[in-house]
């Protein structure tokens, strides 16, 4: 029951327009976080680790074979899986430094 509901919640929250997500960034690229999709619980974890709307992020590297991302956020390196990164929607895209 709860599973189905969470899946629905995730689905709905991802409908918000065709924004780029953190998972779309290539190593070296930067962007600002617009908002977070996903269930309340998933959002909470990401935000508490510092991925709040408006924060600047930079993808440092991506592990081989579609593995996790290494992201610089609030001055530290955070690693998250591709599926987790896909829930982080980004504002307009800018070139990396």
């Amino acid at each position, binding site marked *: 029951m709860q599973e189905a509901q969470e899946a629905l919640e995730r689905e709905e929250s991802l409908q918000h327009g065709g924004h780029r997500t953190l998972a779309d960034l290539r190593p070296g690229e930067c962007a600002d976080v617009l908002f977070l999709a996903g269930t309340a619980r998933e959002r*909470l974890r990401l935000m508490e680790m510092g991925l709040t*709307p408006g924060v600047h992020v930079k993808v440092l*590297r991506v*592990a081989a074979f579609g593995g996790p991302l*290494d992201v610089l956020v*609030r001055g*530290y*390196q955070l690693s998250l899986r591709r599926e987790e990164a896909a829930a982080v929607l980004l504002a307009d895209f800018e070139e990396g430094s």
Partner: protein
Amino acid sequence: MSTLSVESWRVGTRTLTVAIVGNPNSGKTTLFNALTGLRQKVGNYPGVTVERKEGRVSLEDGTQITFIDLPGLYSLTPHSPDELIAREVLLGLRADTSLPDVVLNVVDASNLERNLYLSSQLLDLGVPVVIVLTMSDVVRKEGKQIDTQALAEATGVPVVAVVAPKKEGLPQLLEVLKRSVGMPAPPLAWEVPEGIRQGIAELQESLQKEHALDERKAFAEAVTLLMQDSDLAPLEKMGPSVRQIVRSTREQLANEGIDFATQVIEARYRWIASVCDKVLFAPKSVTQHSPLSFNERVDKVLMHPFWGYVIFFGLMAVVFQLIFALGQAPADEIKDGIAKLGGLLTRYVPAGDLRDLLNDGVLGGVGTTLSFLPQILLLFFFISLLEDTGYMARAAFLMDRLMSRVGLHGKSFIPLLSSFACAIPGILATRTIGDRKARLITILVAPLMSCSARLPVYLLMTSAFIPNRRVFGIGSVTLLTLPAATFIALYFLGMAAAFGMAWLFHKTLLKGVSPTFLMELPPYRLPSVKAAAIQMVERAGLFVRRAGTVILSVAIVVWFLSSYPKYPRLTPDQALQKSYLGQLGRLIEPTIRPLGFNWKMGAGIVSSFIAREVFVSTMGTIYNVADTDSRAGQADLGKRMQADIDPTTGKHVFTPLVAVCLMIYYVLAMQCMSTVAVVRKETNGWKWPLFQIAYMTALAWTVTFSVYHVGLFFGWGVR
């Protein structure tokens, strides 16, 4: 303002309780070690697998300070048992831990922004807080400056900068701690946004009335309860009116389109930004988004999509080679020592039951435990070193893709690798896996990796029954022989079974639990040999207590089973045949007959519940070979096993096919009582260890049965 609990501050005895709270990798453990030295008590909080560390210090003026080292946390919002326990301790809700007089918040200066998130939550509680600033030397090296005085002003609590490894700042810290007891509550850090103020206030009031919480703790609890509807949130324990208010407030906020969690977290980070502005100064050349250049340069190599893996596997090869190479000599010494002790016993204790009990039961059990110890100590030492340097998180990053396919976590890799030495340190090492599902699956499959106790069984069976034929080679150089190929196949079988079962559990048993990987890649730091040594001793103590006691008791039981009833006039092999162990072997014979085994293997299987390697010495007794430790003895044992003819069928008891089946059974079956005991402790109940015994036995039986019958059908390895 709030009423502070001062009961535990008794002036006469002057004891105070200090809780140490901080992010993982903030230097919290180093500080705890520096403060308490080796006067530490390590255990678990009852009912959960959260490590409980306590250290007591007596100061010169007679003050007794008890430091409670809480698990490393990024947040106090309950996501896992770690946060839940920390919360309960800090709110004074746990009967086993008194409410801390002071909260010592360890803050990593080189990672101020994220560290202050937890601080903002701690300041909610209204308990006196002292901030300990670590790594300020790192900040200076980066060319930045940090103003401790400004931090104290911005947070409203005392700030002490320390360099824990050099013990700098510790005396000042202790002074500040003593002075902080009974101080008024620090000011609330963040500004509560307008839209959610009303909801929090209502709930806070109800919590104060219904649960007798003071103003500030009620505030902190109100924020947490409104934050999320996690199954861990302590809402069920709350009174009816509190639950009612939580529900109605959530509904109202949803109607207004306000996301409570976003509001709170953003407000906290706004406060953090204002604090950082006041205390952290970076010259223009050090911009916010130039990552630590040293770190970045190292990462470029160690996390390289190709060389990263080469280095990782190379490093693992070196570490495990070292573990086996360095562990061998002390293990042999220990075995010699035990043998000498046995000699002394034989000399001074009169022959009889007592001598046999001490010699075969007690010394056997202690010896088995101790002979594993050198390897396990080394394993813990290296794991802790890798952890301290920050490399472990990188290894998890590299391995995560592979591991996540079967529902495991990047951090599952090292525990599984460690299980090649022994499943127990492997299972204890799963504590670093944050995701509960991934941790449980890792624990469930870890014993399938071929541990070093299986090695003697493989060696005995391959050398006796697998012909030393060439499988592969170039010209006259043989590169792979059949026994070697068999060895490799056995190791791969274990790995394949582990990954296959992990995948199966991921898809069936534990389906639906969403996995998380979110993990910090901490900056590289020089490891502390002292910290690694402390951790090694702690974990090794855990091994001796948990595994050692089980091994000892199983050894005594097996000794009893194999020596009674007494038949003094029979030779040892005949006596064993009539003993309870022999009878037990016969009792289980019908269940292992279909696998091609007879009662002798049955007795071997039962006796190897001490540790799998005991199979060899049981075979030694059955076939009347005394010295199974030496090469000659083993060769002799092999010959006798080869020659053994079943009197009823007139056929050989052991054929190469039976030998292979026996080894497959040993790869897959749960044959180790100490692992069971450790799994029970680590999963906090009998459910998972019993499940593990059941699935592994079923797996072992089915696979062995299939191989045996397919083999018989095609006439493989039948003499």
